[in-house]
């Protein structure tokens, strides 16, 4: 009984985080802001859903596959996000007008001097 309640609460939190992250992906003004909002889908959104499924199912065949999925997306998704951010900054996509500082650009200029 307690296990089902905890699992359902984790799944609800996960779906809520997914929805908010996707709302940020649509609303925010810039590539980098959108990337920062949409990686929240990973760390508590889909991982929350998978953790809830693991709590509901226990140590069965399904449960071990779900744990494997959590480890997999925690390893791969930050790598993809970092690669996309670096590539988009190097290919010359501008920041939005409201942004204050561009520290990556400043570091690059210091290194060239």
């Amino acid at each position: 009984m307690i296990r089902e309640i905890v699992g359902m609460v984790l799944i609800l939190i996960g779906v809520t985080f997914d929805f908010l992250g996707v709302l940020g992906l649509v609303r925010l003004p810039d590539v980098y802001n959108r990337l920062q909002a949409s990686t929240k889908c990973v760390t508590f959104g889909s991982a929350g859903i998978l953790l809830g499924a693991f709590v509901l199912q226990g140590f069965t065949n399904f449960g071990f596959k779900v744990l494997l999925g959590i480890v997999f997306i925690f390893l791969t998704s930050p790598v993809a996000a970092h690669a996309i951010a670096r590539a988009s900054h190097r290919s010359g996509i501008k920041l939005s007008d409201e942004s204050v500082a561009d520290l990556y650009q400043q570091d690059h200029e210091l290194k060239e001097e």
Partner: protein
Amino acid sequence: MNNNQKIRWRVVRWVIGFLGIGLFMYWNFFVYSALIYYKLINIMFFCMLFILFRVVFGPTPADRIIAVDILGVLMIGLTALLGLIYNQSFFMDIGLIWALMSFIASLAYAKILEGRSLDD
């Protein structure tokens, strides 16, 4: 487009957004009657609609790449919910393979966007 028109267009966008999300949530939780898993799957499909908006109308190529990457992450959660409904474990195999292909594809897209070739 002057300042007055810009403010009017912003108000129209906020009204469309609130009406759309509110009507969908009202239909999903008060009209549609099914198990709770089916309602959660409806919310995930609604999220995928937003992601497809960003894929189609994204101003730069990086927006489209981010959207496709996040689509792969949402697909794992969707397959976990489907597996909980039907009590079958092979749905998670589909989700894992989908996430693997999405990861490799987003790395390749990032490499092409940076201007290097694939065997670099």
